[in-house]
């Protein structure tokens, strides 16, 4: 730890700028991709392909009136957006965005801090994030935000459990909470030759649970119940405007980036990847590139989901979380542990292993779909107001500069 002070400063600044920049590009990319899916053009005026649109929108937001409505609880109303953004930045502190880098004679890893509690840090910070949503809803002192806030905080805590349990099986395999250990444990040869030893393959159910959980945790379509325009106007942030609204928007989009960043070291081998025999002087770029590509893959998945899926109904969302994902993750944790212990004891003959894998797959399928078949959802017929209606494309601006208008339809009288 005899590093000069500029190393931690550089690590912090690089990571901060990295995620801020990617978030800005994501906001533009999402509008472009979703526009393409809806046969529109999307923002294409500012800069090449409109890539500077987010910058202009952000700048515009500074000059918007930041209304503080009369009935709000001022202290908490101001605090809530800060909590969201700060927790969003802090959660990625343990994620390595690249490999080792040597600069001015100092060798260090491109991560803010490789903490010994690693993955628990991620979980703890996402549980802090709940406060942002809850407090925003409560402090607004207004019906829609209150409903939206309590609703989305219930959603977030539910999927937090599923995510925590999914990560538990990763920890079982890796035997450590430290993210660098988890990445290192995935560096060996995989089950089959030529396939990387990424945990996404042996722990596929956990991976699936985690990915579904991260979409819900980020409050993104199809799980964006917080801002269901049809019923809750804008959800917990209805009473916010100007830059404070911008903070919530930033936090939401940044959670897409951070969630995509978190899943990479846990399930996809982190920044590891082939360096194609490049000389050492340039080989350090490859981990950065690999990490970036893997992360962008997930970000793209988020965007496709938004473009393709209609919004879930709230009771179905909670049922999915509690009655499907959590039991699956729990059972899978025990199954993983059993398998690892069998491996430790000398392993099984190949035939038995295959048989067990098939049996496990069958059990999982039964758990996933059997429950739904045995308990048909009669309420969906009985209930009158079905709010599964998706995001209407018309609400998504055709290249307009007014991002805020998409979520705040008629705020200004």
């Amino acid at each position: 730890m005899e590093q000069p002070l500029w190393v931690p400063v550089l690590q912090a600044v690089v990571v901060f700028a990295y995620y801020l920049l990617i978030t800005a590009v994501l906001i533009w990319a999402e509008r472009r991709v979703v526009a393409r899916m809806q046969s529109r053009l999307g923002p294409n005026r500012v800069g090449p392909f409109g890539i500077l649109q987010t910058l202009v929108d952000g700048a515009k937001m500074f000059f918007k009136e930041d209304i503080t409505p009369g009935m709000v609880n001022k202290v908490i109303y101001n605090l809530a957006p800060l909590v969201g953004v700060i927790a969003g930045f802090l959660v990625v502190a343990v994620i390595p965005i690249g490999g080792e880098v040597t600069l001015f004679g100092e060798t260090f890893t491109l991560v803010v801090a490789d903490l010994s509690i690693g993955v628990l840090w991620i979980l703890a910070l996402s549980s802090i994030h709940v406060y942002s949503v809850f407090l925003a809803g409560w402090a607004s002192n207004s019906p829609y935000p209150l409903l939206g806030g309590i609703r989305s905080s219930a959603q977030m805590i539910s999927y937090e459990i599923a995510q925590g349990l999914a990560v538990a099986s990763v920890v079982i395999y890796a035997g450590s909470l430290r993210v660098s250990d988890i990445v290192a444990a995935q560096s060996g040869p995989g089950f089959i030759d030529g396939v990387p030893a990424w945990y996404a393959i042996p722990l596929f159910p956990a991976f699936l649970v985690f990915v579904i959980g991260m979409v819900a945790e980020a409050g993104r379509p199809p799980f964006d119940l917080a801002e269901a325009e049809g019923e809750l106007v804008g959800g917990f942030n209805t009473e916010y405007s100007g830059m404070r609204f911008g903070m919530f928007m930033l936090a939401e989009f940044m959670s897409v980036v951070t969630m995509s960043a978190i899943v990479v070291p846990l399930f996809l081998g982190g920044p590891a990847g082939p360096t194609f025999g490049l000389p050492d002087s340039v080989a350090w770029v490859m981990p950065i590139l690999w990490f970036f590509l893997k992360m962008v893959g997930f970000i793209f998945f988020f965007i496709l989901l938004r473009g393709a899926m209609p919004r879930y109904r709230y009771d179905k969302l909670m049922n999915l979380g509690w009655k499907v994902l959590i039991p699956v993750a729990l059972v899978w944790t025990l199954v993983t542990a059993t398998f690892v212990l069998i491996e430790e004891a000398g392993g099984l003959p190949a035939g038995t292993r295959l048989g067990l894998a098939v049996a496990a797959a069958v059990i999982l399928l039964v758990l996933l779909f059997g429950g739904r078949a045995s308990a048909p959802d009669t309420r969906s017929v009985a209930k009158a107001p079905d709010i599964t209606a998706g995001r209407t494309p018309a609400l998504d601006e055709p290249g307009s500069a007014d991002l805020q208008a998409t979520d705040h339809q008629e705020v200004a009288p």
Partner: protein
Amino acid sequence: MMLLAQAAEAGAGNTAEVLLFWVFAVLALGSALALITMRNIVHAALMLVLNFLSIAGLYLTLESAFLSIIQVLVYAGAIMVLFLFVIMLLGVDNDDLLTSEPTARVLAVAGGALLAGALLFAFVGPATSPASVCGPDAPAAAPDQFDCRGLAEAYGEDDPSGVAFVGRTMFTRYTYAFELSALLLTVATIGAVILARRQDLAPEDEDEVDGVPGAPADGDDAAALARAGLPATERAEGGEHHAEVGDPEPEDHEPSGSPDDHERRG
């Protein structure tokens, strides 16, 4: 607290550690004081969150990163969310939450005094010695100094956060306690379900908690639910209920009586 301070100062003279200790200690005490004096219940709850976070900071300076993050995850992340949900369930600005019966006050004062006495005894009483702080294995040291190993040393090189240490201990020495905790949680869940279902059977009545002695069954259910959800807050506030200092905030709508008649219950 004193002991911790001494231990921190004795430990290798790490100034950053001592500085952090004082920062977190002041934050913890300050937020605890604010918690029991604030009139707005959500503000008080947030002070409790701050309190939990500063305690987590104290754990961190004491080289127990695992305990520290668990403190954040469970207390700040889960228990306080439950509290906030319960507050929402009961209605935030309900005057009923700010009043308490005289017997409850007396009990609270007595309980608080008892707890404070026990803590004081534990920290400065005869039971406190280097051996009690460092465990029986610690080498004998002069009475006025603490010459024992830090947690990081006890955990070992390859377990800096102490997670493996906790795991090993919990699943060997404290097996029964561990399984009993599962039973405890199960009982808590079943109790919560039963209370909630009884609440559900009662017709929806907005005023049932407002202290109006309406239909006995309904009112009792709501009150029972309130008690079920809130005892931990009451405990956290200890016996300091009497220490209520009016902290009227502009956005609070003041209860009708004089401030002395009203007191926060949890």
